[in-house]
């Protein structure tokens, strides 16, 4: 069988090239999307039970199974580790994570193989045994240690009394007790009595915790205010520098060009340290008002964000031909009027881009702020600092919640910027 021989020149298919483009570009886009999605999916949005102490002894499986005693009609929280096959209670095998309830008795942990460390966790849910109320503060006693801390939040439910249900801030704790204010704050005179029905406690999800926390509320506010201030300052400086670098030739221009890139090239931490050292040489009243106070936050953000704004503005002005100014000059403008009437209206898109970039850089700034402004709660704590403090306290979920708040803030700002940009294009 023979096909007619192709005559002369043939060109190879475009498919491999196009597929290559899609694969390379797509893989990066996929990672970006997956990264954000992972954060959203990983966070457990359900309330978590208040759990007592760990019941499984640490150690290794050594031939025998590890036994624990379970009380009847009580909820336990089981988490299977990588070395454990499950928990055997009589005939029942508990192999999935979560709360369960049995008739009680002896339970044994079944290992995958001997001589491996125990990785499972079994904890009783804390039950409320007693409620007392005095001066509108409820004190709840639990039958096991609840592990909650002062300043955390607790959701009270199933009380049968609307004044009791809701998320409350814990105002005092001991091992087995915790206190919180009850009743709406507006009705001071209302007499609050303990509910008769069963009261159930749970830990609200980390996002609720974060948004209710006074520290994090402050850091959200400080982040939004300082980033906006930084953006305005950056544009204020970046527009003249960008215009000057784009339009004028002068001696020492390469040196200035290099200087402008220093904040971009320098490790952020070093920027913070350099600022700190610089302020040792400043008059005392100045360094007293800046260092370790909120102005330090703005200054640290500004040093880095502004460099990016300058770059963006310079490219923007470079892309606007000089012809426009020249024509405007012959029509009767001086340089200032030509700049405001002809150049700035064309630079709006670039201005918006520079502002967005500066805002986003400022929001993510962490190293220099930590060094130059410190990480004092309710004073110099911005969102990245909050994330760091949460991580340090061992609350990954809390850090994730703060990260989600930052993602949300960034997304909102980008949407606003894009909408403004679109308006400009479609006007």
């Amino acid at each position, binding site marked *: 069988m023979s096909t007619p021989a192709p005559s002369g020149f043939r060109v190879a298919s475009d498919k491999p090239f196009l597929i290559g483009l899609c694969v390379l570009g797509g893989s990066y886009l996929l990672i970006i999307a997956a990264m954000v999605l992972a954060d959203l999916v990983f966070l457990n949005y359900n309330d978590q039970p208040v759990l007592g102490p760990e019941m499984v002894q640490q150690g290794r499986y050594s031939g025998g199974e590890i036994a624990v005693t379970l009380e009847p009609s009580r909820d336990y929280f089981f988490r299977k580790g990588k070395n454990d096959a499950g928990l055997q209670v009589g005939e029942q095998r508990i192999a999935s994570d979560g709360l369960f309830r049995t008739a009680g008795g002896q339970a044994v942990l079944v290992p995958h193989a001997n001589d491996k460390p125990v990785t499972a966790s079994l904890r009783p849910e804390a039950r409320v045994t007693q409620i007392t109320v005095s001066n509108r503060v409820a004190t709840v006693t639990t039958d096991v240690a609840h592990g909650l801390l002062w300043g955390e939040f607790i959701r009270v439910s199933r009380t049968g009394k609307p004044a009791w249900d809701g998320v409350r801030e814990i105002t005092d704790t001991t091992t087995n007790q915790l206190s919180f204010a009850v009743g709406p704050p507006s009705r001071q005179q209302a007499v609050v009595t303990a509910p008769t029905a069963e009261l159930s406690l749970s830990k609200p999800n980390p996002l609720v915790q974060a948004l209710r926390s006074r520290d994090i509320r402050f850091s959200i506010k400080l982040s939004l205010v300082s980033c906006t201030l930084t953006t305005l300052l950056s544009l204020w400086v970046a527009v003249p520098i960008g215009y000057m670098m784009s339009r004028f030739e002068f001696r020492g221009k390469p040196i200035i060009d290099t200087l402008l890139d220093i904040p971009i090239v320098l490790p952020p931490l070093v920027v913070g340290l350099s600022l700190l050292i610089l302020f040792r040489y400043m008059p005392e009243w100045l360094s007293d008002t800046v260092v370790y106070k909120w102005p330090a936050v703005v200054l640290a953000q500004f040093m880095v964000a502004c460099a990016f704004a300058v770059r963006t503005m310079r490219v923007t002005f470079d892309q606007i031909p000089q*012809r426009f100014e*020249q*024509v*405007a*000059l*012959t029509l*009767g*403008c001086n340089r200032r*009027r030509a700049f405001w009437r002809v150049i700035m209206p064309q630079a709006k898109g670039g201005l918006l881009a520079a502002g967005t970039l500066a805002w986003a850089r400022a929001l993510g700034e962490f190293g220099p702020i930590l060094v130059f402004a410190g990480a004092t709660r309710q004073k110099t704590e911005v969102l990245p600092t909050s994330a760091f403090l949460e991580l340090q306290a061992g609350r990954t979920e809390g850090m994730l919640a703060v990260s989600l708040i930052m993602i949300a803030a960034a997304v909102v700002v980008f949407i606003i910027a894009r909408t403004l940009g679109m308006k400009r294009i479609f006007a």
Partner: protein
Amino acid sequence: MIALENIALRQGSFELRDISLELAGGEYGVLMGGSGCGKTTLLEAVCGLRKISGGRIILGERDVTLLPPAERGVGYVPQDRALFPTLPVREQLAFALVLRELGQADISSRVDELAELLGLTALLDRMPGKLSGGEAQRVALGRALAHRPSVLCLDEPLAALDEELHDEMCRLLERVHRETGVTILHITHSPSEAKRLAGCHFRLANGKVQRDE
């Protein structure tokens, strides 16, 4: 009138020296020359957009050598037209008038007059991005004429127009010249264009301007 007396200027390694040119008031002069011989540079010098290192520039009986472009009373139409992308046609035409702080009524009557002259009446509210090549050229011309300059500098105004538009623009330029009496200095590559429009021919070659009779 336009008079250049022994002008010297340099731009990087490019240099023009001892350039002289004289065009009487109300005349239509065409300046020709090969690519890269400095025609545009010379025109920019007339408009005050390029510093000259020697000589004098006289526009309409005034020595403007040291004046900024705004005070020279020139209308400049660059080769790429450079219409301001953010302004509608009406505001392009009114640009120079607004800068001179004329009253609203004066401005709109002058804009209407220009639109009438250049056939732009229907386009006054268009943005420059939505204009054809010929329309954009007419707007650029109108913008340069708005403040009644004594001198109009045109940098290859008919390049990149097709045959039909080319002819139409030629007629329009003749009409503008006749009706406004402005002194025009027009740069072109095309000998036929020069022949048709000009009363006065100049040739820039080897760093010298010659007057062709």
